[in-house]
């Protein structure tokens, strides 16, 4: 339990650093936030008024304090492009992105874990060489380019999957309680909508995940290789355990922990990488929201996205680490 406490403490510390970084971005790096907030056509007196209103004439430390307390109260500022509170924008945009990342993560895990384990077991064979080459190629593909090519070829030329959007035209009015289309459609028993949503997710999820899967296979392989070299594998063989049993019961159980920690981090990184994918596939989501905000120079909205993605990242890491801790009680049990 002490570990969990420490882990949570670390997350809170990370949150402070995150707040500091986003504060730095919105208040220091971007120049004078008052000029930005006052809008492009404001005169000097308007800017001064805004400055006073935003508390920008006060010392930085006080500003940081105001900034933090605003955010902790759920106030991320107002987008001067959508004229909406940024917080409500993000709450609307987050579910489709999380849905996309979730599907991409499922593909990632389903490919990385078995492939990493097998290439570690058969290291040095032709199978290993081929996988490594494919992985290396995958790690060199720009996500956004892959997305365009997939969209043009698989959806455009072959017409195998829908080109863009989140749902087909016939389901455009579908809504649900959670905002996660896959979940909502299942809850309402609308399997046609579920299939439609999934079809719309395949290409973007694949484009999003490829780079991460390439890294995932490598990480898993390295972790498993280290385990295969240990003497407990020899002892398991000496017991007469089959290779399959050794791989699953012994090696995987030990090697998965460090690998899964990385996958936990990848969740947040993928959410960040949606900026490269969502816009191409015309999907709603915070990636597209961020890109739009960037083109409109809507700094507060961009920084808010940075903050939210960072927050999701912190939470997913925390969840993964605590889950792993609870699942593998060794090591910490005696400490």
């Amino acid at each position, binding site marked *: 339990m002490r570990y969990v406490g420490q882990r949570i403490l670390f997350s809170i510390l990370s949150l402070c650093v995150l707040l500091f970084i986003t504060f730095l971005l919105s208040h220091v790096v971007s120049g004078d936030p008052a000029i930005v907030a006052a809008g492009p056509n404001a005169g000097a007196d308007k800017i001064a008024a805004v400055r006073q209103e935003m508390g920008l004439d006060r010392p930085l430390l006080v500003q940081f304090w105001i900034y933090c307390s605003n955010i902790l109260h759920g106030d991320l500022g107002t987008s001067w492009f959508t004229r909406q509170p940024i917080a409500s924008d993000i709450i609307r945009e987050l579910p489709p992105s999380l849905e996309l990342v979730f599907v991409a993560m499922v593909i990632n895990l389903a490919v990385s874990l078995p492939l990493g384990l097998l290439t570690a077991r058969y290291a040095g064979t032709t199978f290993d060489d081929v996988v490594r080459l494919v992985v290396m190629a995958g790690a060199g593909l720009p996500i956004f380019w892959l997305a365009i090519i997939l969209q043009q070829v698989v959806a455009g030329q072959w017409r195998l999957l829908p080109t863009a959007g989140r749902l087909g035209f016939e389901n455009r009015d579908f809504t649900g309680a959670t905002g996660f289309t896959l979940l909502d459609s299942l809850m309402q028993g609308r399997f046609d909508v579920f299939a439609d949503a999934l079809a719309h997710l395949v290409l973007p999820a694949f484009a999003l995940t490829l780079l991460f899967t390439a890294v995932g296979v490598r990480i898993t392989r390295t972790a498993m290789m280290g385990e295969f070299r240990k003497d407990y594998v020899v002892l398991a*063989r000496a017991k007469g355990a089959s290779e399959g049993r050794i791989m699953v019961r012994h090696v995987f*159980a030990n090697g998965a922990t460090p690998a899964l920690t990385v996958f936990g981090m990848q969740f947040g990184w993928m959410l960040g990488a949606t900026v490269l994918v969502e816009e191409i596939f015309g999907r709603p989501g915070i990636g597209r929201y961020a890109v739009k905000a960037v083109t409109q120079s809507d700094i507060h909205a961009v920084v808010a996205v940075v903050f939210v993605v960072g927050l999701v990242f912190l939470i997913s890491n925390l969840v993964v680490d605590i889950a792993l801790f609870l699942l593998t009680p060794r090591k910490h049990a005696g400490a």
Partner: protein
Amino acid sequence: MASLAPPTTDRPLLEIRDVSVALRTGNRTMVAGVSLAVRPREVFGIVGESGSGKTLLTRTLLGLQDDAYVAGGSVRFNGQDLPVNGYANKARKLLGHSIGFVPQDPFSSLNPSMRIGKQITEAIYLAKGWPMGAERTREAAIGLMAEVGIPEPALAFNQFPDQFSGGMRQRMVFAIALAQDPKLLVADEPTTALDAITQRRVIELILDRSRKHDLAVILISHNLELLRQSVGRIAVLYGGQLLNIVPSGDIGQSTIHPYTEALFDCIPTREKTLADIRSIPGEPVGAGFGLKGCAFASRCPYVVTACRTTDLPQNAGTASIFSACILGRGVH
């Protein structure tokens, strides 16, 4: 296993003839022409410096070495011939129930994420299936843990390896080996990572329990003095060659192979003074040195030209005492 006739006492339990071991990459022969026999209930030692091939030889014979294979010769265990083709798989099948193995490093030889009890019951299950049901298997495992001297075995059953010292862990590894109810126990440097006091306790425990369970033991070590005090016969490996099989009582007493003699002269023991210590000049020759003749020729005080040109004599009849010295030193 039940179909095999019980071995008679004069029949060797493990007999290897002219066995050579080669690496999978490059097919380099690392160990060549080793012949020896271990009888049931015998305590047998294998000594060698690092690179002598002692670990490679035994691990390969047990089918545990991924990067090496038995390249030639014949292996017979408990009256059953093991073919050289597909040797590793065949040998591996024997391990679960006939041969127990204790590897060197107790800190990595137990699965860190599996409870101790589970690791022992797994060994019982793999060797015998579940003939007695989960509860009886658990009791058997706890019984074994008590037998190898683990205090509060029922408590330790549910704990993880990292809560125990090196000596305790090595006892658990030994319990796993005993759980298979084997006929032969192979212990590869089981106490090298341990302190002197623990070392002696673990060695004595292994020998004592093995006697009780009618096990033959092969104890591998770099420590000639330890083997001299613990086992009956010692096989001496150097540069991938079997140079000597010597009764431990002969060491320091009668004429033995020049290498064994030189090795014994190197080690400080209780009785020796500084004047008794004589080092061997030069560096040890590693296994797979690829020279003709005797591997020890380059450092041997008795060396003659023939040592470097004549093929090494073989222990073709797997005699219980053997010296590979062409000068006849230590040959009975």
